[in-house]
C-alpha cells in the first residue's frame, strides 16, 4: 500500500521538481493522444514546447509569449490575493471586459485630438476604474447582503459580454466603419495606443504592468500588513477576526484590486494587441488566469512562471494546429492534461509517499 504523510513543511526540492515532472508526464500522455490521432508525437511536442522558444522563428514567438502571458499574469496576481483569503472572484473575465470598454471609451472620446501625455494615462485610470467598479458589485453585495461572490462575479461575466456587444454595435461603433460592428482601431490612434515599446519584442505597457504587479504582489505578501491579514484570513478566519482583521474591508480590498488589475489587462489589450472593441473581444483570459493563479501556487513569482508556461502551450499549440493539421480541440485537451498533471503531482510538495502498510489507511 502507498499512503501519504503530510510533510511538516512543503518540500522545497519537490516544489521545483513537480512542474518539470508534470510537463514530462504530459508529454508522454499527450504524445500518446497525438499518436492516436495519426501524428508524429515527437514532432508535435517539439512544435509546442521547443520551436516557439528556440526554433527558426523564435525571434517572433518569444515576443508573442509576452503578449499572451501579460494579461494572464496581471489578472492572476490580482486574483491570488482574494484566493489566499478565501474570497473567490471567478468573474475576472467580466472585469477585463469592463476595463477595456471604459478605457477605450475615454480614448475614443478624445478622438482625434493628439495629446498622448493626457489621453493615455486617463485611459489607464479609466480601465482600472472600470474593472474595479465591476468587481465592486459582488464586493458590496457580499458585504451588505452576504451574497455569494463566486456566483455574482460569474453571472456578471455574461452581463459584461452583452454590454460589450452593445458597445461594439452602438455607442463605441466606428462611425467610419460602414456600419460594421467594432470601434475605431486604437492602435492606429497615436495618443491612445499601447504600442510595442521595442519593435518586435512583444514588450508593451501591459507587460510592464504585469511585471510591476508581480513585484507589488511579492512586496505585499512579504512585507505589508494587508498581505499578512490576507494570509491569516485564509488560514484561519477566526484567528483573523480576533486579530483585528475586518472581513468587510478585506473583501472590498481583494475584489477591488483583482478587478482593477483585470480592468488594466483589458485596457492594455484593447489599446494594443487587440486594437479595438469588438463583439468577440474577450478570449477567456479571465478564466485562464484562475488556472494560472493556482498553477503558480498563488505566489507572484510562481504566477509569473505559470503564465509564461500557459502562454507557451497556447502559442506552441497554435503552431502545431496550423503546421501539422491538428484539430484545435486536441490542443485544448492537451492543455487540460497538462493542468491535470501539474495539479496531481503537486501532492508531492506537501506530502511524502510512504510504502508499506500504514496504520491509517
Amino acid at each position, binding site marked *: 500500500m502507498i499512503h501519504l504523510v503530510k510533510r511538516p513543511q512543503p518540500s522545497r526540492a519537490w516544489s521545483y521538481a513537480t512542474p518539470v515532472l508534470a510537463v514530462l508526464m504530459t508529454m508522454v500522455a499527450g504524445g500518446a493522444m497525438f499518436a492516436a490521432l495519426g501524428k508524429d508525437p515527437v514532432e508535435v511536442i517539439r512544435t509546442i514546447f521547443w520551436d516557439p522558444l528556440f526554433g527558426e522563428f523564435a525571434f517572433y514567438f518569444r515576443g508573442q509569449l509576452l503578449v499572451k502571458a501579460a494579461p494572464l499574469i496581471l489578472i492572476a496576481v490580482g486574483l491570488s490575493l482574494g484566493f489566499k483569503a478565501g474570497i473567490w472572484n471567478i468573474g475576472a473575465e467580466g472585469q477585463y471586459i469592463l476595463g477595456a470598454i471604459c478605457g477605450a471609451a475615454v480614448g475614443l472620446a478624445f478622438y482625434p485630438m493628439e495629446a498622448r501625455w493626457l489621453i493615455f494615462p486617463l485611459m489607464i485610470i479609466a480601465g482600472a476604474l472600470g474593472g474595479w467598479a465591476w468587481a465592486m458589485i459582488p464586493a458590496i453585495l457580499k458585504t451588505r*447582503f452576504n451574497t455569494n461572490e463566486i456566483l455574482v462575479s460569474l453571472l456578471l461575466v455574461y452581463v459584461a459580454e452583452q454590454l460589450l456587444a452593445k458597445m461594439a454595435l452602438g455607442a463605441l461603433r466606428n462611425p467610419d466603419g460602414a456600419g460594421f460592428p467594432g470601434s475605431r482601431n486604437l492602435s492606429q490612434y497615436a495618443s491612445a495606443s499601447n504600442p510595442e515599446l521595442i519593435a518586435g519584442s512583444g514588450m508593451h505597457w501591459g507587460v510592464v504592468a504585469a511585471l510591476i504587479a508581480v513585484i507589488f504582489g511579492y512586496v505585499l505578501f512579504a512585507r505589508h500588513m494587508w498581505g499578512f491579514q490576507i494570509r491569516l484570513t485564509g488560514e484561519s478566519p477566526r484567528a483573523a477576526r480576533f486579530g483585528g482583521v475586518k472581513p468587510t474591508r478585506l473583501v472590498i480590498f481583494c475584489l477591488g484590486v483583482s478587478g482593477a488589475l483585470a480592468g488594466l489587462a483589458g485596457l492594455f489589450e484593447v489599446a494594443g494587441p487587440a486594437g479595438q472593441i469588438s463583439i468577440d473581444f474577450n478570449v477567456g483570459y479571465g478564466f485562464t488566469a484562475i488556472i494560472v493563479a493556482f498553477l503558480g501556487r498563488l505566489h507572484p513569482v510562481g504566477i509569473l512562471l505559470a503564465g509564461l508556461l500557459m502562454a507557451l502551450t497556447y502559442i506552441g499549440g497554435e503552431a502545431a494546429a496550423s503546421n501539422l493539421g491538428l484539430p484545435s480541440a486536441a490542443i485544448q485537451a492537451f492543455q487540460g492534461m497538462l493542468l491535470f498533471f501539474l495539479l496531481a503531482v503537486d501532492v508531492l510538495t506537501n506530502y511524502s509517499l510512504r510504502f508499506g502498510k500504514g496504520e491509517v489507511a
Partner: protein
Amino acid sequence: MDLSAINWAVLVASLMVAATPILLAALGELVVEKAGVLNLGVEGMMILGAICGFAVAVETGSPLVGFFGAAAGGALLALVFAVLTQVLLSNQVATGLALTLFGLGISALLGQGYVGIKPPKTEKLDFGPLSDLPVVGTILFNHDYMIYFSLALVAAVWWFLRYSRGGLILRAVGENHEAAHALGYKVVVIRFAAIAFGGACAGLGGAYLSLVRVPQWTEGMTAGAGWIALAIVVFASWRAFGVLLGAYLFGGVTVLQLNLQAAGVAVPVEYLSMSPYLITILVLVIMSADRSRAALGAPASLGRSFHASN
C-alpha cells in the same frame, strides 16, 4: 404587438424543456456540494455527456441507451476529478476549471465524425386523452420521458438528502469531514460516489441538449449552461426544490425574453438578453439578505481538501 399573442401554457411547457439540461446538471452538483466538494467542471462534464450520449444514440439507434452512455461519460470524467482532488488532494477550484478545458477539447475530438447527423428522435410519452386537456395537458402531459425523470430525480434527491441514512452520512461528510471520519465513515469513498453521481447527472443534462432540445452535435454546444447550473445550486441554498425553482426560473426568463421579442414588445433587446443573469443576481441578493436562510444551506467543508492520516 401585444402579450395576447403569447400562449402562456405553451410557454411553460417550453421553459421546462429549456430548463431541463441545467436542472439535471445542477441536481448532480447539489449532491456533490452537499458532500463538501466543489466541482467547477460541470460545463466539461456536460459537453462530454452531450457527445457521448449523441454518439451512443446514433450508433445504437436508441436515445435511451444514449442517455446511459452520457451518464457513463460524465461520470468517467468526474472520476478524473475525484482522483485528483480526493486522492492527490489537488485544489478543487483549479481542478474543476481544468476539467472544463479538458472536457471541451476531448468532446470536440470525439465528435468529429458526428457533425451534421440527426440523432434518433426521443419520443414524447403517450398519455392518450390527457395530453389534449387544455393548459394542464400542454404543461403536464406533453413531454418526453427525460422531463419526468428529471422531476422524479428532484424528489429523489430531496428525499435522499433529507430522510435517508445515506443522505445523513453524505451531509455529515460535507459539514465536517474530520468528525465524519472519526465516526468511521469513509469520507473519500463517499465523496467519490457523490462526484460520480454529479458527473452522471451533468452528462445527462448535456445529452438532453444534444438529443432533445437542439438536437444535434456541435462543438461547444453547451455554451455556458454548466456555469449556470453552478449558479443555480447556490441560488437554491443547496436545496433540491430550490434547484428546481432556480432552473425553471432561469429557463423561464430565457424563453420569455425570446417570446417577448417574437411578440414585438418594444423592450431593448440587448437588455432582455442580459435579463436572465440580472434577475438571477437579484433573486440571489434577496435570498441571501435573509441571513438565517442562507446560512443554513452551505456545507461547512465545501471546497476543502480532506486527508485522513492527520
